[in-house]
């Protein structure tokens, strides 16, 4: 290849003009919502600390418990992040979690299958269910909302097929896994579930930002038609995204089982909405194409901290969690709108 023959000396492109301005770059930056969520988390924490420090709010375990108590939500929200980034939605998350708890409890408690066999099986069923929904969405060009709504009913119904009543798990291995703790400095600990959820999170960050598949997910959410014309295998990517979500839901179901040591047809009812809320509060655009999994972590932590603050307050009804979540969700969706308008 010879040197550039294009003569640009005539019109020296102005660097300053060609590059986005710094301030505008911050306002238009895709990271802004993540910063806002992080700032919100810090502010809420400081607020909580100044109000409840006599009640040991300042101990490390309060923070560690955010991970321990919300590990299943984090994993579910990571799956939802994939789907939402690709421009879709998955409403079947809660049902899939409920079904997984039910199936696991039944097989372990009633059929005495070893946990180490049941867990992979549950994950495989979750992934297959997600793949099936992805296939239907892609192949028949149906709204993901409708297809996953069908999934929501299907898996919730299947819970009752497995067993009508809730099953307590007293299996020795499960109990030991549930009690397994990792000691951290400063007299704090993380449960096995919390650690596993962080592993899933790290894997998701890697996949989304450092693999071709991850970038295809973003491309799909940016503009599906363009992605197709650019040669992105849209169908395969879409199916894969719902497979990931189904897998994460099943994984979250296993963590939930571990956390609560039972299976129940009504477990995790409506949890998909919490997961979607965490994703949006974490700064991912509901229209797809823009967002970060680390934002989703922050979203989960903010939701967890709201619950913690309300429990520390003591007198407030837990319904205030929902009110606060709703208000936050609205605020973040408005922020997204304002940013989208600024960009234009």
């Amino acid at each position: 290849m010879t040197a550039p023959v294009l003569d640009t000396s005539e019109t020296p492109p102005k660097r300053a003009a060609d590059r986005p301005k710094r301030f505008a770059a911050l306002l238009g930056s895709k990271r802004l919502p993540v910063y806002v969520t992080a700032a919100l988390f810090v502010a809420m924490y400081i607020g909580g600390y100044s109000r409840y420090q006599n009640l040991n709010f300042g101990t490390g375990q309060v923070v560690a418990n955010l991970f321990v108590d919300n590990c299943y939500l984090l994993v579910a929200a990571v799956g939802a992040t994939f789907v939402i980034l690709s421009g879709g939605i998955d409403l079947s998350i809660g049902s899939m979690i409920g079904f997984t708890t039910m199936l696991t409890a039944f097989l372990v408690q009633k059929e005495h299958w070893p946990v180490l066999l049941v867990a992979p099986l549950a994950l495989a069923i979750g992934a297959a269910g997600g793949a099936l929904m992805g296939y239907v969405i892609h192949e028949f060009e149906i709204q993901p909302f409708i297809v996953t709504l069908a999934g929501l009913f299907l898996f919730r119904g299947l819970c009752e097929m497995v067993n009508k009543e809730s099953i307590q798990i007293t299996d020795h291995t499960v109990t030991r896994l549930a009690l397994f703790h990792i000691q951290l400095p400063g007299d704090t600990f993380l449960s096995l579930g919390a650690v596993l959820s962080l592993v899933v999170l790290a894997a998701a960050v890697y996949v989304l930002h450092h693999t071709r598949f991850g970038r295809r997910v973003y491309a799909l959410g940016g503009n599906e038609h363009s992605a197709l014309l650019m040669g992105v295998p849209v169908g395969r990517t879409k199916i894969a995204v719902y497979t990931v979500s189904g897998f994460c839901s099943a994984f979250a179901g296993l963590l939930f089982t571990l956390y609560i040591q039972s299976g129940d047809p009504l477990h995790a009812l409506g949890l998909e909405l919490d997961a979607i809320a965490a994703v949006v509060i974490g700064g991912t655009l509901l229209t797809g194409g823009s967002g970060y999994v680390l934002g989703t972590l922050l979203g989960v932590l903010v939701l967890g901290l709201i619950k913690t603050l309300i429990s520390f307050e003591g007198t407030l009804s837990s319904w205030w969690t929902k009110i606060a979540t709703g208000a936050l969700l609205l605020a973040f969706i408005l922020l997204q709108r304002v940013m989208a308008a600024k960009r234009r």
Partner: protein
Amino acid sequence: MTDPSPVLEMTGITKQFPAVRALDGVDFRLLPGEIHALLGENGAGKSTLIKVATGVQESDAGTIRLGGVPVRFPAPAAAQAAGISTVYQEVNLCPNLSVAENILIGREPTRAGRIRWKELERQAAELVARFGLDVDVSAPLDAYPLAVQQLVAIVRAAAVQAKVLILDEPTSSLDRQEVTRLFELMRRLRDEGVAICFVTHFLDQIYEVCDRMTVLRGGRVVGEHLVSDLDQGGLVRLMVGRELAELDELADHVRTESAQHTEDAAPALLHAQGTGRRGGIEPFDLEVRAGEVLGLAGLLGSGRTELARLLFGADQADSGTLTVDGEAVTLRSPADAIERGIAFCSEDRKAEGLIPALTVRENIILAMQAARGWIRPVSARQRDELVSQYITALDIRPANPDVLAGQLSGGNQQKLLLARWLITQPRLLILDEPTRGIDVGAKAEIQKLVVSLSDEGMAMVFISAELEEVLRLSHTVGVLRDRRLVATWANGPELGTDQVLSTIASGVHE
């Protein structure tokens, strides 16, 4: 030079859509190392042919050979893998990804499945620099204006070492300098042996950069020529599909007292001075008087509609002044224009005009009700009176106000649209292609209506792709070319289609 064997050879390509046969046995050849123009008016089948060649759609019949080997493209990825690279008219990139990713998506350098970001950005920066673009490849694509995005799309397409590069109207969002840059790039790729297919509506560009051309009309090939063998007049005739002699006959109609009209002392109803819009139409001067029909001629994409939209406030002018009744105005929205008595019948009556699921009555009354505001409803009696009056006046058939608008024929839909605007009693009526796609009888009726309305003192801007129609009806004729108003004449017997055609073709006003 011996004829080298074609890189891309499409034979007998046929594509049937539910309503139309978009392509009918089209043969198309691209030779290595040539820039080949693919031409035709709207609906001629260019886009469909490109979609077939790039795997977006599959043809119903016909074969595609690439380097002599028969191929099938079930998806765009397959065509790309085979070495056919495409830049579409609208920027088809992902605005949320970085410039570098957009250029290299699908070809990201990886090590053990992990994208090497540094390497990715280095490669992209190199490519971008090769094409003389100065952009930060790590910035998201939507941080840049559309023209830059279009250039990035071209960089992406050219970066694949493609055998065939298809450019579908890539210049519509570029300014002159950027077009020059693009042409240099195209020539360089041609010299490297790439076969380039170039689609454009700008005739000058064809003569500037292309070697050969294929002209489509109505889904068939009507000519394959060396650019040097066919002058612009001949090309326009091929595209429009009529010989000059034939046009002369059709235009041999009486041209009314136009000279008097233009000499008339009547003050201008609407006067545009240097009005223009960047990327839409270059600044133009224009005057319309009461009772005058101003005809606008020009090929598709020449700026006819863009001009009309400025006068109606559908787009905002960014230069010049507009006076209505001698008073300077700024039309910020169609509502501003309607308030000053300006009405606009869109060329796209399906998408922008009629509401097919509403009845004839409701469609007619719509604009009037909108003009009055929702607080002052039109009384039922008054409404029925007006509706039946206009149905009779325009002879809308069936003469039943309760029929759904979508069930009317094209010509009657057009009349319905006209009725809707006439009921607001506009002083200036802009008609954009009012006779397109309707049968001969309805066409004649609409033409008669234009004449009688102007006799009653209404000013009109009449836009049509059909020259004879413009010449028959207009007192003043304006010619647009490449988004510029290149000439305005008082119509008269001495103004022939030849003169207008040659101006459309050459842009030179004799």
